[in-house]
């Protein structure tokens, strides 16, 4: 499955400045593995030492926050948009 991944500004050093990059995978976990192959080093920024999503990272598959779905096992349908967003925004 091919998806488009929106990259936050702080990770664009890994993507040559690109704000959106293609990746492959049927789950979010596979998409991150695919990203790591194309852009080495990026997975360690998104995942912690235990391989879980870092607590200050939000990931959306289309409009759904993966924490409400299947986490890293959330399905990523063909053509889906995946957004990686810093969680420390908003509110007061």
């Amino acid at each position, binding site marked *: 499955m091919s998806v488009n991944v*929106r*990259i*936050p*500004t*702080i*990770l664009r*050093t890994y993507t040559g400045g690109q*704000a959106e990059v293609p990746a492959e995978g049927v789950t979010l976990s596979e998409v991150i593995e695919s990203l790591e192959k194309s852009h080495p080093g990026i997975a360690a*920024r998104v995942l912690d030492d235990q391989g879980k999503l*870092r*607590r*200050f*990272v*939000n990931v*959306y598959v289309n*409009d759904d*926050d993966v*924490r*409400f779905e299947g986490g890293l096992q959330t399905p990523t349908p063909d053509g889906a948009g995946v*957004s990686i*967003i*810093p*969680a*420390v*925004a*908003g*509110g*007061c």
Partner: protein
Amino acid sequence: MAKCAMGKMRRKGLAIMAAQTVATSAGSTGTSVDLGPATGLSCRECGTRFDLGPIFACAECFGPLEVAYDLPTGDPEALRAAIEAGPDNIWRYAPLLPVPADVASKPSLNPGFTKLVDAANLAKELGVTGKLYVKDDSGNPTHSFKDRVVAIAVEAARAFGYTTLSCSSTGNLAGAVGAAAARAGFRSCVFIPHDLEQGKVVMAGVYGGELVGIEGNYDDVNRFCSELIGDPLGEGWGFVNVNLRPYYGEGSKTLAYEICEQLGWQLPDQIVIPIASGSQLTKIDKGLQELIKLGLVEDKPYKIFGAQAEGCSPVSTAFKAGHEVVRPQKPNTIAKSLAIGNPADGPYVLDIARRTGGYVEDVNDEQVVEAIKILARAEGIFAETAGGVTVGVTKKLIENGQLDPSLTTVVLNTGDGLKTLEAVASDSGQTATIRPSLDAFRAAGLA
């Protein structure tokens, strides 16, 4: 007059003080940006240091960035006197904030120094035998505490050369940004959930900036803004609670400074604070810690309590379950200004409540409405729903024995009830309608 007072404060206060780095400044170049005592940004998670700039998340671990300072030190008595000689707004604390020294001379809404109300009637109503105070931030220029944080963000926006101010908002912030932008000469374009209370929508729109409703809840709005800031479409925009968030959040420290100063430079024993993202609670704790470190108050234990609405209670749920992480929720409460289902500072709120021996509690919507009425009838203070949450939670904490009624307690009211009329409108209208005659008055039994 304000400028003069600030100048006096600077001369009197800083001349006798040597600079002391409270947070380590290793790795920070400081850059040419003038934000007063701010020396850089530091990741709250991993400690990585960054220069002052419009960034908000750590490039290493995504953790939140915080302002690090060279805070003044020296004779606390002289610093207290310098502060007391300052203007009657947040700029009296300028030496402790990321703002330039001449901040009081710039166009600003000059928020802060709101009333600390001695709430003796409410104390009786709730069974408090010690002192109970309400810090009433509805007295700010746009009637919520948001004026404090926005005023600081405006100074950061100036320093970084932005001309457009923006934010994601549950309503109060939108109004605060619109008003501050109007006064300070910025363009504003703010984003809100499309279904907010009319009072907040009108208050946000009247200042003339762009007010955009997003079809979704606050978390959807916040996500949209986070994406916009990373897109060329958002280039040149200062989002007060996204790319300016490290500076913006510091404005909430002024609540801690004011409470202590108004208590005669003493720490309260207990504070009850509403939780939306949790930033306000963490910054009040930071402010209290700074006052202790600077010797402006005597160090003693204090407890911080967090208040949420049951329909959006990710932090209280995590607290009660003993968790260290906060699982997001989909909000469903009348307390829309607190309806953040994915609170960015939630984990830190848990840390602070546990460290200080406090608690995080929630109340349902009926209890929120009841609490708004209790406060209004006891003290003549009309709180918005967030204030209903704090008063309602205070009542519950006392009933459950978690809050000691014999101590000095401060409860925050962060906004004005006029913004959330819907919450109490159904049974707070006319109690009688009569003809304009004495007979009718007598007949209605009103004498």
